[in-house]
């Protein structure tokens, strides 16, 4: 029941926002819809906490410890982003970069995007998972090109084509998965239900599943933003509106990784080897290295943090590939804290670039004096994202590193190198932006403070103390993902 509410609220909000258009109250309705989604997400989480995994709607929906924390996270970040977007988009309209019609489109598509992501997390059917993933891409393509500048259209086209191809390969992987499942479970929709597949995964034909995993890895990996199929990500993040960059980085990448890990569980059950884990470790470590060295050459502030997202998704993918209780626990925590920190950083980056009317880092200066909250928000956010204690990213990276040293010591130097380079690159870039005197062309603006404070508080809290219910979920998920 709560499940249905959770899915229907964003759909209704999307339709309502498409219908009422860019009236005075549209941003508030957007916030209200997301808040309602968040509340039902929390209610669902409480139910899962009390009763354990829920199967509903003729086995069509399935929520367990792994998906429920991501559901709450998705609902939370989409709510705070909606709050941020109210002030941010108002400012954009004052600057004349966007008109009424496009703002209507923006709001409606934002809610549709949330719906698609929640459907990914809640569905039990691997086929529907693919469809919802594609829907999430499609609903954001035209948001990336919202400003209709040549660069924005180019970025959106790249995003559309690359992710379209990637996701098509993932569909081929899903077809192969169904092909293997059909022999064991018989034809029909039930053969694609994840819960059924997980039960019989040791009977599925290993040759087919290993081949399927290659396609799924490349397909969903494109959406996770793993090197070498990451090219769309920095472009889409830098050219789209900042609220969209925040949800792409904070949520969509996580969801794609979620899909990949779900499939990995089935493949591992069938093959009984660590083969798929090795592939994920390889993709992960290459992403970490390439992204961290790319950080050094960036000039655009949003591209900088887009590359940082590639690096962090690489870390999570690597940790899931490594497997074992510590690394998996670290990866789950990392998805959570990266999402919160990165979207908070994008909020401050959005305001910073509005204050200077540019995304070039050389021209952004004196943020702390100009607007203390934006300045400190960015400074603290960057400290958190590079893995400084006492923030949550430190905990997750520490866990992953410990597990790496213990189980794959040969990989540890590469991991450390990547972390070190990105630390240096981000600090070198961010320090001149937050410090120094206020440049004459800097404009004053009313920033959306609440989202940044909320996110950073949670990240800090998670670094100091991990609540019992969360670690309980993570441990259940660790057992599930083995």
């Amino acid at each position: 029941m709560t499940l249905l509410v959770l899915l229907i609220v964003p759909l209704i909000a999307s339709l309502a926002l498409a219908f009422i258009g860019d009236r005075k109250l549209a941003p508030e309705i957007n916030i209200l819809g997301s808040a309602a989604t968040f509340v039902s997400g929390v209610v669902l989480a409480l139910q899962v906490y009390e009763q354990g995994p829920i199967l509903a709607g003729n086995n069509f929906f399935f929520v367990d410890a792994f998906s429920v924390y991501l559901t709450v996270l998705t609902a939370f970040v989409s709510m705070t982003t909606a709050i941020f977007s109210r002030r941010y988009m108002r400012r954009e309209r004052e600057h004349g970069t966007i008109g009424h019609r496009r703002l209507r489109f923006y709001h409606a598509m934002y809610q549709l995007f949330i719906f698609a992501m929640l459907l990914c997390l809640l569905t039990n059917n691997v086929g529907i998972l693919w469809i919802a993933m594609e829907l999430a891409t499609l609903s954001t393509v035209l948001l990336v090109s919202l400003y209709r500048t040549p660069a924005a259209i180019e970025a959106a086209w790249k995003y559309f084509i690359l992710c379209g191809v990637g996701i098509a390969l993932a569909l081929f992987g899903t077809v192969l998965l169904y092909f293997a499942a059909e022999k064991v479970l018989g034809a029909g929709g039930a053969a694609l239900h994840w819960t059924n597949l997980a039960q019989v995964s040791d009977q599925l034909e290993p040759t087919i599943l290993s081949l399927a995993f290659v396609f799924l890895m490349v397909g969903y990996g494109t959406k996770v933003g793993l090197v070498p199929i990451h090219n769309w990500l920095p472009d889409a993040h830098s050219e789209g509106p900042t609220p969209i960059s925040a949800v792409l980085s904070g949520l969509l990448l996580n969801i794609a990784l979620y899909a990949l890990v779900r499939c990995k569980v089935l493949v591992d059950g069938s093959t009984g080897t660590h083969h798929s884990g090795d592939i994920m470790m390889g993709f992960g470590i290459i992403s970490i290295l390439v992204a961290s060295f790319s950080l050094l050459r960036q000039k655009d502030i949003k591209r900088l943090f887009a590359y940082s997202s590639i690096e962090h998704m690489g870390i999570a993918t690597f940790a899931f590939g490594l497997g074992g209780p510590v690394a998996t626990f670290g990866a789950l925590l990392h998805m959570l804290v990266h999402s919160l920190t990165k979207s908070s950083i994008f909020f401050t980056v959005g305001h910073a670039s509005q204050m200077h009317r540019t995304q070039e880092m050389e021209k952004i200066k004196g943020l702390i004096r100009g607007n203390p909250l934006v300045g400190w928000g960015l400074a603290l956010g960057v400290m958190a994202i590079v893995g400084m204690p006492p923030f949550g990213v430190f905990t997750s990276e520490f866990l992953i590193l410990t597990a790496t040293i213990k189980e794959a010591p040969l990989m540890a130097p590469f991991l450390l190198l990547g972390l070190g380079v990105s630390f240096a690159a981000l600090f070198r870039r961010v320090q001149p932006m937050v410090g120094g005197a206020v440049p004459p062309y800097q404009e004053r603006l009313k920033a959306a403070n609440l989202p940044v404070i909320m996110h950073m508080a949670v990240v800090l809290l998670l670094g100091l103390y991990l609540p019992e219910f969360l670690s309980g979920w993570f441990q259940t998920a660790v057992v599930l993902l083995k």
Partner: protein
Amino acid sequence: MDTHIASQINSLLAALILLTAFGLVVQRRMNALLHLFAWQGFLLAVSTAIVGYVGGAHDLYISSILTLSMKVVLLPYILHKLIVKLKIHKEVETVVNIPTTMLMGIILVIFSYHLTAPIRELSTLVTRSTLAVALATVMLGFLMMITRKHAVTQIIGFLAMENGLLFAATSATYGMPLVVELGVALDLLIAAFIFGMFFFHISTTFDSLDVDQMARLKEED
């Protein structure tokens, strides 16, 4: 219909689909491309219907009708309208010359057969030998997207890939579950709407649909 004859017909259809896939890769004229694409969709629909008839999987009739209406009628019609409206008739420049592209295509086909060899031995369906052709069609669509620099041809390549995927679903199994097929069709419809919008945006912003002009977003050294 005898199963044996059905499998013969299906192999013939698979060969024809592969032929159209090669045609798409090498054809330069826009209208001919659209015709080839529509033919490919038609062959796919017929093949789906035959598999459905032989296997007694009646869901496949719906899938076949969906393919017929989307890939043979609707999408070519939309693309044709766009081509007329945006005045694109001229030959499409390819990055690599045609003989080389052909050779690359042949290598991809051999690769597909090699990749699917273990799976073909496992399948008990009459249609199993066509799985390699399906994968080859996907790969050729992919090749087309890489070697062409025109937005419309890239989209046709993308749709040809989708054809290959549907063909894989019907040849490896008796089609995906109906709810998945419907969802895929819905996504395709939305994608069609989006690339329609895109063609207008690209042609008004860049004065042509040549994607080579889109080279602003690069890493500077």
